[in-house]
């Protein structure tokens, strides 16, 4: 008897809860395709996490390259004199010394280092092959320069100084390939942004389409609410809430999966070594912020898409 009593009491309570928790005048959550829509939002959010994650990582990489190379210059004293004749090693050594002194005198220069023969050989060997001997091979003189501030004017001034010493001396500010790299990462970041935009538009289209079909499905009920004097906002709220809950569920799942994927990629890529070329692929502040903001953005997009779709359809009613 007691068991029966408590059974009935829980049943009563459930009925009471169902009544108080009545969220919908329209049974939108029972519409066909709700599961599919949640899955779609989840996939879209996952893709957005990936695209934005890639974009931030690229940005970080480009910044590292830029800051690592910006203040470094290499001065080359070619082994060959313009015209074809070879420069003697002693000539190269003499020119290197002179050039180094001239560079040190410039206020923008921090350190100057003439690279030894061994260093130069080590730099060149990857291009020549291990088995080739350097015996008798004319090697250029290389000077590594670190600037205090690598402004274009300072670099131009150095070029001018060097030309005064010898026409052949070449200053490499790494500008051209750095520029190419930055252009490449810029393009990739743009692509990521475009993908994110497409994802947002796709989500809007999917939500708007779903809302339209649900309005058609519940046309009679929507009309009834309208005839009973329900304002457009009252009716809109029903659909907006539906879209919001649906988007939240999908976006949370998608973000969780995306975050996990980023983490795994970060782990498998290691910490980028000591080359300074690759950034640490751990989740940065921007990534974490994205993971938090994306579900909010998805909900906002979904509920606004639902709102405007419903208002447009309602405007056609008398």
């Amino acid at each position: 008897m007691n068991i029966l009593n408590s059974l009935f009491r829980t049943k009563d309570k459930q009925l009471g809860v169902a009544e108080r928790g009545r969220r919908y005048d329209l049974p939108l959550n029972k519409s066909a395709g709700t599961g599919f829509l949640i899955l779609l939002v989840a996939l879209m959010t996952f893709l957005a996490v990936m695209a934005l994650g890639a974009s931030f990582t690229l940005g970080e990489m480009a910044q590292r390259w830029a800051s690592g190379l910006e203040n470094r210059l290499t001065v080359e004293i070619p082994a060959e004199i313009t015209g074809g004749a070879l420069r003697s090693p002693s000539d190269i050594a003499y020119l290197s010394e002179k050039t180094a002194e001239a560079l040190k005198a410039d206020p923008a220069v921090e350190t100057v280092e003439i690279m030894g023969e061994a260093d130069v050989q080590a730099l060149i060997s990857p291009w020549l092959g291990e088995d080739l001997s350097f015996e008798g091979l004319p090697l250029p003189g290389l000077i590594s320069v670190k600037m205090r501030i690598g402004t274009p004017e300072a670099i131009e001034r150095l070029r001018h100084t060097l030309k005064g010493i010898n026409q052949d001396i070449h200053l490499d500010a790494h500008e051209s390939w750095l520029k190419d790299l930055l252009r490449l990462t810029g393009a990739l970041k743009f692509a990521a942004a475009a993908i994110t935009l497409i994802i947002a538009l796709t989500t809007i289209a999917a939500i708007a389409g779903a809302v339209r079909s649900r309005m058609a499905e519940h046309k009679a009920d929507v009309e009834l609410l309208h005839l009973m004097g329900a304002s457009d906002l009252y009716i809109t709220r029903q659909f907006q809430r539906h879209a919001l809950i649906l988007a939240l569920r999908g976006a949370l799942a998608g973000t969780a999966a995306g975050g996990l994927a980023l983490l795994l990629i970060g782990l498998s890529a290691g910490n980028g070594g000591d080359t300074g070329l690759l950034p640490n692929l751990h989740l940065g502040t921007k990534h974490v912020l994205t993971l938090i903001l994306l579900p909010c953005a998805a909900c906002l997009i979904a509920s606004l898409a639902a709102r405007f779709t419903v208002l447009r359809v309602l405007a056609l009613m008398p």
Partner: protein
Amino acid sequence: MIKFEHVGLRYGVGPEVLSDIDFTLEPGSFHFLTGPSGAGKTSLMSLMYLGRKPTRGLVTMFGRSINKMERPQLSAIRQRIGVVFQEFRLLPHLSAFDNVALPLRILGRPEKEIRSNVTELLEWVGLGDHKMMLPPTMSGGQQQRTAIARAVIARPKLLLADEPTGNLDDEIGFRLMTLFEQLNRMGTTIVIATHSQTIMDQFGHPRLVLEHGGLRVEEPKNWIRRKIEGVF
């Protein structure tokens, strides 16, 4: 309260279902709307609850022309009209309670007030034990009583009922007619479409008779007799 001037209505390219309808209903009046089946009673009702716009003519409701009204104003007017639809139009997935509560929720009334008012009215129409029942599982009479309860719960200024006693036995039909009478005494203007001669004779109210697309107003016989008796 309601004023129709030269109102005509046609569906699509069909013939005029209503033509040159002219009448005025004073606030607090009680009218029967009668006429043979297919005469246009439901169509005329739909014009009065702003379910559609007339193809021609002027409709004035609550002292304002609806032809020039904006959407929010139309909603506000609809909120003051209670309608019992001929085919009930209950929301099938909402319980009797939630169906009846709907107009109050649309008005944004507090949930506590809704609970007590709806419960009381459902008991009054004999559905106290079926609050959680869903419309598809109700009998025709139960649906009709739910629909009537929903139409009157928010104390409308105008009540339009389309054959509201068609599915009810005489006793409960009479009971609901007295509910309408009570509402009328509290100031609600009432129009009831019916072709039940018994009910019209029992409650002596003037009749709007629809025939061949036109409308004429008839004072009831006993009403006239009562007037004559009053004179002599």
